[in-house]
């Protein structure tokens, strides 16, 4: 069964198929359709929708629901995402699975409601306090908004971590065809650690406090090992990359601009390909290195260069210092999207054509 739906609605559909039982959220443009869909569909399936009084409340309601052993989610945009950072740190600190969808709008401050990828750092590097990370997926279509929401729940449960679906205002509002999953996922069993109000879970304690510095360090080491292991679930895709002289690296909506740019340049006989990280954390470093080794690299992004810096860091950590040093970037900010024309010009300039 296919549906022609807004990506924001596809998120809710994915969540329901993934077995999400509770939605907590505060409306914000351009993410509100997610709350609208959840408000209608969660109760129809006997699940729970709560309109919270603020994003601080939303994320802490998730802390309670996840701590009680249920899959839950919220969706927001930049300003609300900022408000949630403390709570996401607590989720990570208590190792609770939960899914946060960020439909990035332009900032800083109130900004506007048009697309940016400027929440990159908090969405990918852990935006709150402490040594934590999230599992962060970057969809680029309505289909992926559905599929990656499901994936986010699976990864959140597998790694006991908050997972973030990181998209932007343009994607959120866009309608595309979505093929719905065949079946709903079974609910994971969290009774080993969750406080469920049952005899078997009576002695369970959900907490992020370690009063003793040594114990806190041991816990931090455990978290860091977990994040290293998470790299096994990194995802990426390449397009026209095998013989490319120039690799365009982009994620989310920008990866689609990259795709058209590469196609346009191929028609002109220029060897250009695309590398698209699908998970931004864990970052698919080895696959990037394989695609970029000995090539020129250009990023397309809707931020001030936070992503390009991360590409440089990952190339350098993979031992590709020269490639890292020469990463070029074309970007727009403020709610503007990089045009294919501009990306083509930039790529030609880098290729000296």
């Amino acid at each position, binding site marked *: 069964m296919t549906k022609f739906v807004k990506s924001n609605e596809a998120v809710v559909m994915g969540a*329901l198929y993934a077995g999400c039982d509770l939605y907590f959220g505060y409306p914000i443009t351009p993410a509100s359709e997610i709350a609208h869909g959840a408000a209608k569909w969660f109760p129809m399936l006997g699940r729970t929708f709560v309109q919270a009084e603020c994003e601080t409340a939303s994320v802490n309601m998730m802390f309670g629901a996840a701590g009680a052993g249920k899959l839950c989610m919220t969706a927001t945009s930049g300003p609300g995402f900022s408000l949630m950072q403390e709570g996401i740190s607590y989720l990570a600190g208590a190792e609770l699975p939960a899914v946060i969808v960020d439909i990035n709008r332009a900032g800083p401050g109130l900004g*506007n409601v048009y697309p940016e990828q400027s929440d990159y750092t908090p969405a990918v590097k852990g935006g709150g306090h402490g040594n934590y990370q999230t599992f962060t997926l970057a969809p680029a279509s309505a289909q992926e908004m559905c599929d990656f929401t499901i994936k986010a729940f699976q990864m959140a449960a597998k790694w006991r971590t908050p997972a973030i679906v990181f998209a932007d*205002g343009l994607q959120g509002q866009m309608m595309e065809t979505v093929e719905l999953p065949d079946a709903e996922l079974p609910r994971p069993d969290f009774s080993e650690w969750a406080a469920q109000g*049952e*005899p078997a879970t009576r002695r369970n304690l959900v907490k992020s406090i370690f009063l003793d510095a040594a114990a806190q360090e041991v816990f931090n080491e455990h978290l860091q090992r977990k994040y290293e292991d998470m790299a096994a679930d990194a995802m990426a895709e390449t397009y026209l990359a095998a013989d490319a002289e120039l690799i365009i690296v982009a994620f989310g909506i920008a990866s689609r601009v990259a795709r058209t740019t590469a196609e346009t340049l191929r028609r002109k006989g220029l060897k250009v390909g695309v590398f698209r990280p699908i998970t931004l954390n864990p970052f698919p470093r080895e696959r990037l290195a394989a695609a970029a080794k000995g090539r020129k690299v250009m990023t397309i992004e809707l931020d001030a260069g936070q992503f390009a810096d991360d590409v440089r860091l990952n190339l350098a950590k993979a031992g590709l210092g020269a490639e890292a040093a020469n990463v070029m970037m074309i970007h727009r900010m403020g709610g503007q999207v990089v045009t294919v024309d501009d990306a083509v010009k930039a790529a030609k300039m880098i290729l000296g054509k």
Partner: protein
Amino acid sequence: MKTIEQKGMYQKFPRSGKDTRVTHYCAGCGHGIVNKLVAECCAEMGLQDSTIFVDPVGCGVFTYYYWDAAHISAAHGRASAAATGVCRARPDAVTVAYQGDGDLGAIGFNNAFQAASRGEKFGCIFINNSLYGMTGGQMAPTTLEGEKTTTTPFGRDPALTGHPLHVCEVFNQLQAPVYIARVSVADTKRILQCKQAIKRLFEIQRDHKGYALLEILAPCPTNFRMDPLKAAEFCKNEMEAEFPLGTFRDAEKGVTPDAIGAQHQASVALEVKPVPQVASCAELFGVSDGVDAPSAVDDPSVPERRFKFAGYGGQGILSLGICVAEAARLESRHTLWFPSYGPEQRGGSASCSVVVSGTPIGSPTVEHPDVLVCMNQPSYERFVGDVKKGGIVIVDATVPITKQPPEGVKLYQVPAIKMAEDFGVPKAANTMMLAALRAFKCTGLGDDSLETALCASFKKKPQLVEKNRDLLKRAEAALIEKEH
């Protein structure tokens, strides 16, 4: 040494790294007494297996070392938000949040207040000791006038810091809570009353009756800088003078606040109104949305076409775009649609973009449309210069051509608004534009697909389907005739 069993508490408290039976509370602290009473009530009522405590940040943070039941340790101020999540996730459990005056009265006030206002089914035990204990005796919203704290070293001056916050009285203005009371643990008589109140709070949660708030006045000898007896006296005399004890509300027992009672019925747990239920996601989403489209099939021979539709809000611009996209889906094409959105959505003008392609679509944005449909002057002037060479502009005949399209772009002036009015259906101007798209072969899509998509767009108003089908055909015939 002989261990004294304490009902509802763990046998040992490993908090300090040693297996002691000593809590972290100071001598004479009200928390210690309340902790014992809560544990007793929970155990005596047989609720340890089903209770989930939500612990605060503050002096109450370590209750999880003491109470033998499940615990969730929340962020500072957020116990009521977390408890909302817990009681919604586990409606059969007994959820009890434990908060102090900084946690509930200051940083988390709105979370607590809104949870109470929603009538969340948890009990909130609120310890009021008139200051911040854990962080070193700073002023709390509940600090008495003139009371010295580490941040009011000259005594709280209401002219600068306001008056003590009366949490019960404020919450008592709400409709949803079923129980609100203030008690004290300053002496034996009060401790016994306090236990009864805690028991009542547990009963209400056991029976899932609704939200309950129990404020407990508690001495803090350390930060009062008094010995335990003097601190208890302070609690009994000074604090009670400001915060009178009593049951403000117990709906089931007929205690209703005057202020509320005058306006509406006493609060009781409300029945949730039923909403339409479905058994599964497949049942919810598996129904056709009007267009039974096959999945897209790659066909590189089909060139990509980019469309822009623009006009005033209310002219059906967005649905015209969706109609073209749906028609493309019927032909197994890749397609996408997106609107202008945000403030401009409400400011008068509306536009949307559609891409149709035989291969997966990369960049979704439409900078150079192949086809531009404009129904008003501002959008014509804004977009006409962007149209691709060889492209088509269809503009309503009411729009003056103040600007010529780029060279090699074909311009059609279509009296869509007038035709719709002449047909007696002024709202169908967008259908007239669809007729023009079909008549002038602008979409690369079959006539049948466009017609089917148009009819499907009226799935919520089936009475308009045949009308619009008819209008589409009549308008198309008229346009073709005019063109020849």
